[in-house]
């Protein structure tokens, strides 16, 4: 039955690009939803046509997730309605929405990792695990250019593959509206491209695709239509053609307050850390002989497709990871480290925000005596950092896990940068942050450099690397395969070197 409705839908193919003429697949009218008297969505209208890729843009807290939750039946709107093919629906569960053809790929892919791909796809439907299901899955996956083995255990898949599985699952269930919540937040650039190619194919088949993103370039390059939300209201709904990224950014934040950071070049001084023939780990996630020197007063950017040794390099430079061979020497008294996975590495979720802010100095005067911890001083220090770095909380005694992603990042950055480090290692410092938060983080990093810190910054955001770095090294397969100075780096060149296409100037 599921497969039937699917073919039937594929028949209603609409022209490419979602011209305004094509049929409305879904229409939300006047969606209002409030939490504790605060509007998360206020009179939001949202039209979605078959055959279009529709980007949903907005800062953290602009109401994107709330809107998605209403569309997919996770929340019920206070007022307003969702029309599908002109018929009003009030879903009381995501299951009902799925039946009506609306499927969501959540950020935190909700899968049973011990089950196989087939089992996850079939779970909750009336289908059986069997050859028929496997063939259908393979067929859907092939159609999208996914290489997905129906028999594979989900825990053995990469994040990108797990996302593909989620998409295949929704299609298997006959979804014709696919909503993806920040799908590229966890993907490497190449994987993102693959994803967007697949989304385009879906749109070409007449499906309606919505994706949430903070990355303006993705929106301008991929989407047909964009809806911008700000403070729970729609501030723009327009075709992407002709839109400039900086216009969209302005719409998102409300004014032109977040222009690209004007970064003055650094003035490199003495070396602060040196790696010679550094080797550690095995396989792709490893270092296979890296020579690198970072000087005081410079930002060294690290580009590379995710999983080519960047994490290992960051940890090695920070002095957290032991080398199997090679040498590391540093002259830094204070080393700050902003890890990629904030909650998993940098913070203790069960301890309070204030306590987490004190991790770097709880063990010395004045915050403690050789025996005692001075709670008053700890709290005073935390209050100071919360103020200075705008950590979004008024209750520092709450567990840090209560904060949002941006809040967590601010806690870590406040704690690490406030120590005036001589060496700062930042891994994906702005991943998942909204435009304003990301800009603030970038300026903190530049400020640390201007205070004389040597900075190593790993990022998958090439624009960010080009903007901030005094020097960019490119990693591939655990080695540094290229190096460029400020001004010499371009997206195209970085992309070539990252993917090993190779150009003149690339060194092994």
């Amino acid at each position, binding site marked *: 039955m599921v497969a039937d409705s699917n073919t039937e839908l594929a028949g209603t193919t609409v022209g490419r690009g979602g011209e305004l003429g094509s049929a409305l697949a879904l229409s939300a009218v006047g969606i209002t*939803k*409030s*939490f*504790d*008297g605060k509007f*998360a969505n206020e009179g939001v209208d949202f039209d979605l046509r078959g055959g279009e890729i529709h980007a949903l843009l907005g800062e953290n*807290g602009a109401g994107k*997730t*709330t809107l998605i*939750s209403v569309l997919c039946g*996770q*929340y*019920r709107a*206070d007022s307003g309605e969702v029309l599908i093919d002109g018929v009003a629906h009030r879903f*009381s569960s995501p299951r009902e929405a799925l039946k009506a053809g609306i499927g969501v790929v959540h950020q*935190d892919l909700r899968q049973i990792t011990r089950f196989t791909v087939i089992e996850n796809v079939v779970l909750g439907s009336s289908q059986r695990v069997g050859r028929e299901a496997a063939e259908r899955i393979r067929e859907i996956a092939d159609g999208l250019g996914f290489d997905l083995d129906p028999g594979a255990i989900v825990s053995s898949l990469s994040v990108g593959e797990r996302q593909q599985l989620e998409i295949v699952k929704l299609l298997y269930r006959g979804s014709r509206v696919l909503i993806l919540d920040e799908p590229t937040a966890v993907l490497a650039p190449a994987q993102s491209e693959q994803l967007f190619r697949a989304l385009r194919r879906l749109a070409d088949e007449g499906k309606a695709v919505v994706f949430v993103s903070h990355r303006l370039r993705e929106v301008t390059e991929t989407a047909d239509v964009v809806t911008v939300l700000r403070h729970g209201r729609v501030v723009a709904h327009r075709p992407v053609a002709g839109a400039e990224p900086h216009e969209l950014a302005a719409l998102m934040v409300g004014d032109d307050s977040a222009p690209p950071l004007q970064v003055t070049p650094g003035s490199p001084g003495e070396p602060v850390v040196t790696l010679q023939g550094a080797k550690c780990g095995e396989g792709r996630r490893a270092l296979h002989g890296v020579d690198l020197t970072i000087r005081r007063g410079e930002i060294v950017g690290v580009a590379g497709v995710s999983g080519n040794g960047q994490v290992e390099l960051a940890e090695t430079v*920070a002095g*957290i990871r032991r080398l199997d061979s090679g040498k590391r020497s540093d002259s830094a008294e204070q080393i700050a*480290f902003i*890890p990629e996975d904030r*909650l*998993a*590495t*940098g*913070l*203790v*979720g*069960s*301890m309070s925000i204030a*306590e987490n802010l004190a*991790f*770097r100095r*709880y*063990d010395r005067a004045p915050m*403690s*005596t*050789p*025996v*005692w*911890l001075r*709670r008053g001083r700890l709290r005073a220090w935390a209050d100071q950092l919360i103020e200075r770095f705008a950590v979004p909380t008024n209750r520092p005694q*709450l*567990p840090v*896990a*209560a904060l*949002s*992603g941006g809040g967590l990042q601010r806690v870590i950055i406040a704690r690490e940068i406030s120590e005036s480090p001589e060496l700062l290692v930042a891994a994906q410092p702005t991943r998942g942050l909204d435009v304003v938060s990301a800009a603030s983080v970038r300026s903190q990093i530049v400020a640390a450099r201007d205070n004389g810190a040597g900075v190593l910054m790993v990022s998958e955001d090439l624009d960010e690397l080009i903007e901030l770095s005094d020097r960019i090294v490119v990693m591939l397969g655990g080695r540094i395969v290229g190096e460029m100075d400020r001004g010499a780096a371009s997206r195209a060149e970085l992309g070539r070197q990252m993917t090993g296409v190779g150009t003149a100037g690339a060194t092994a």
Partner: protein
Amino acid sequence: MRGWRLERRIDQPLASRILVPVLAIVAGLLFGAVVLAIGGHSVTEAYEAMWESSFGTGPGLEQTLIRATPLLLTGLAVGVALRMNIWNIGAEGQMAMGAIGATFVAFHLSGLSALPLLVLMFLGGAIAAGIWALVAAIPRALIGLNEIITTLFLNYIALLFLSALINGPWKDPSVVGFAYSKPLPAQSELPFIGDTKVTIGVFIALAAAAVIWWLLDRTRAGFSLQIAGGNVRAAQYLKIGIARRILFVLLISGALAGIAGVIQLGTASGRLQDGLTANYGYIGILVAFLARTRIPLTVVVALLYAALLTGGTALQSTGIPSSIAQIVQAAIIIFVLAGQVLGSYRLVRPLRGSAQPPPSEPAVAGGAR
């Protein structure tokens, strides 16, 4: 229930933290009432007996306090280790080693007067039990050998060692039929408080709770323990050594259980004997769990659990079979445990805007609950 749903919350309001366990206990008592009624027993009579034997009368309250004392100590012992994500199942055996250590001191320093002898007995007991815990802690810290297994099996060794001592070198030959050690010197008995049957052990246990609370909350070492226990990776990158802290925390844990053993020794008949540990070491696991390793809560839970134990005994003396008494006890505990889990959620009705913003999953890293 359509449309209602449970949502996890990070911060449980105080009112709910108090109300939920109270309601859970009431629910447990109601369930117990049904069981009692089915068994044809008088519910009011039974609960009256439970109340009088635990809190309602002077002697009842004394019995409760006497049982609460070792429970508080073993609850602390398990709880403090749990803060480091270490499951010390060995409090029972550590209690036995504590009693053995104290007996050894008492036999060898019997010439001392009461105060120095008692101090040395506590010290000896704490050290013996601490070292016993280290037997499990060292392989755990060095090669990651699972402490749940080792501490559990060390219990059997410790309890059998105690048996061997009172049947062998320390046996009182004048007692026939029972294995007792020779009597301990008279001055080694713990002084009673006023003219009650409660010993000063209660104060020692409370003092231990205060010290542990201070250690964890107000000292540098305690703070680093919380980091290490909360998130191993964070600890590693802050250069907080894990192995050392596992040793430290199990040493403290063992010592606390050992002190419980010494108090049992000084409260019992003045002899080392089988059954001295009375499962307090195992019940301590439940106490620590119910108290979520929070120290002040451990005091409360130990007291309530002790009341449940004395109340359960009283039920049997009214002619109710022990099996039914145990069902009533277990029902209360299960309801409290269920309440604890449910209390960390709230009911959300998605129809109206009564909830908090979107489901940003609170991924609480590591840590004991």
